[in-house]
């Protein structure tokens, strides 16, 4: 029996999609975005997407689009393919079937050498664990983002973000000298430093208590909003359900 997928938006429209099938609701869901945001650019467009791990049964994903500044929650149980979908969108996994367009660029058209730079300039990642580079200071962790993406380092931007996230006094500290909250803020700052079109967050709040969960999601929404970045959050954390504009439930 095919797995079910549900799409939902904050206006209360509930959409149930069948995996593997091209439901008429797919186009209805896409149309919702353009209906409400007719002048905004589509930054993510997924169509007919499926991915197989070696010989395993293919995961099939719904068609959807995300426009500039949109916030989308990918939710579902463990193993439902949330992280896989994020990795596919981020170009971390390839050899998929179907279409993924980021900023009007079909990911499959990029070579393995060009996709790295493409990803570095357009997508910022935030993970459940902060995963900062322990050998570097806070400031150098930030400066590394544009360096690795091949973008000129904007020191003013680094200063502004450190100041914005209340990390100015921590800039010369090493990662192990930071509190969990500070480290999470550095990870968020690093993700948005290059002003990416998309910020992708994989289980950013799963290990946090309610207070910290609220702070992190507030911060993600704020800094993504300040940069007009679209925010894509994959989580099974139900506390985020009412915080995002749109949701896709993978089941």
């Amino acid at each position, binding site marked *: 029996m095919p797995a079910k997928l549900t799409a939902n938006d904050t206006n209360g429209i509930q959409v149930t999609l069948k995996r593997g099938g091209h439901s008429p609701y797919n186009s209805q869901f896409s149309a919702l975005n353009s209906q409400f945001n007719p002048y905004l650019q589509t930054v993510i467009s997924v169509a007919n997407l499926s991915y197989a791990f070696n010989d395993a049964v293919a995961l099939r994903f719904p068609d959807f689009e995300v426009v500039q500044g949109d916030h989308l929650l990918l939710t579902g149980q463990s193993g439902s393919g949330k992280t896989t979908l994020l990795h596919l969108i981020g170009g971390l996994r390839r050899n998929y079937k179907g279409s993924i367009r980021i900023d009007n660029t079909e990911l499959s058209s990029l070579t393995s050498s060009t996709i790295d730079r493409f990803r570095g300039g357009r997508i910022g990642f935030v993970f459940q*664990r902060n995963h900062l*580079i322990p*050998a570097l200071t806070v400031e150098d962790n930030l400066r590394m983002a544009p360096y690795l993406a091949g973008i000129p380092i904007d020191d003013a931007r680094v200063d502004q973000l450190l100041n914005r996230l209340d990390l100015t006094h921590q800039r010369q500290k090493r990662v192990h000298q930071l509190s969990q909250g500070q480290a999470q803020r550095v990870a968020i700052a690093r993700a948005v430093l290059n002003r990416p079109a998309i910020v992708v967050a994989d*289980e950013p709040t799963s290990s946090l208590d309610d207070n910290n969960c609220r702070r992190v999601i507030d911060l993600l929404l704020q800094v993504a909003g300040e940069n007009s970045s679209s925010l894509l959050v994959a989580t099974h954390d139900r506390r985020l359900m009412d915080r995002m504009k749109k949701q896709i439930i993978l089941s």
Partner: protein
Amino acid sequence: MNLVFLVWQYLKFRPLTTVLNILLLGLGIAVITIMVLSNLQLQRNISRNAQGIDLVIGAKGSPMQLILSSIFHVDVPTGNIKIRDAERFAKGALVKQSIPLALGDSYRSFRIVGTDKRYAGLYSAELAQGKWWTRSMEATLGSVVATRTGLKTGDRFSSAHGLTSGGHEHDEQTYQVVGVFAATGSILDELILTNIESIWQVHDLWTAADQQRSQQDTIPLLTRSPIVPVIMRGDSVREITSLLIQYRSALGAVQLPRIVNSNSTMQAASPVFETARLFSIIGSGADLFLAFAYLLILIAGISIFIALYNSLRERRYDMAIMRTMGASRIKLFVAVLVEGIVMSVAGSFAGLALGHIALAAVPFWFEQTEKAGITGWYFHPFELILVSGSALLGVVCALVPAVEAYRTDISDILAENN
């Protein structure tokens, strides 16, 4: 921010591992540096000190001892030879030049050499101050002697019997310093030169009457000694230590040593042959040290490989994160290679520094190494080969970890760690 900065931060993050690897490689490089540079300096100085000397004639005994004492002034002479006997070989169709040496006394461990001006000419000596010796008991000092003893023109000093300090002092006869040579970079810098008559005078073989006769120049030209022209040919009393011979032609090399060794009470020793023999003796010991050094470098290479490999395993997630930020596979591959190269090149520089410091320090403990002209300030293109070789070693050691970094599957790592 650049790749070298990133690599440097990682190396700094593991200071103990980094320093130990650098030291381990540095020790191997230092031993090689010491062995090779001291060998090169020794060869250079031997050829410089032996220039213009094809054969040494002296008392029978060890030929190597004769060479070491008469050319390099690091061993005691085999004995003395009669002037009368040496005169047979001082001139002739086979000999272009013969320079007599009379050894046996010293001043504060610096050897006093009775000879003539041609000896200083072998080393292209020039005066830095004063003049050449002209009369008995006048001395001209090598530059190192003047610096170390503080003697200057006009000063007087007493010689001591023997070639090391502590011998009986000839207080009754004092030398006067009349000049100081400019530095030549040869053994001459460590010698006190005077005429042969001075040596005889100190040992009561040259009297005031002899001195007076020599000044009056009364000896007929044909009867003068070809070695020391102020005495008569065939003197059976006075002695010298050795005769430094320069051949007139290649024929001399074939005939003269055989004639001396078979038809006299003296021996002839070839500097080229004896120094080659010396190097072959030293060489077997040096080979052992070099083998030890190569073993150290091999261990250091393995250690760098293990350090990089382990560090890479610890940093798999760092690498995956870097890939999410746009780092290409090639960039991570190069980063690991650069890390290996930085560590090994740092090791080579540390080794070169250690080697030079050791070579500079050795003369403080072993005086003979200074006489052999070994210094820490000698540099040779071979050191560039050592640095390049170390960089290559770094590449080899880092290659497997770098390939691992290149093949990092970011998605799997991120999935398993998130």
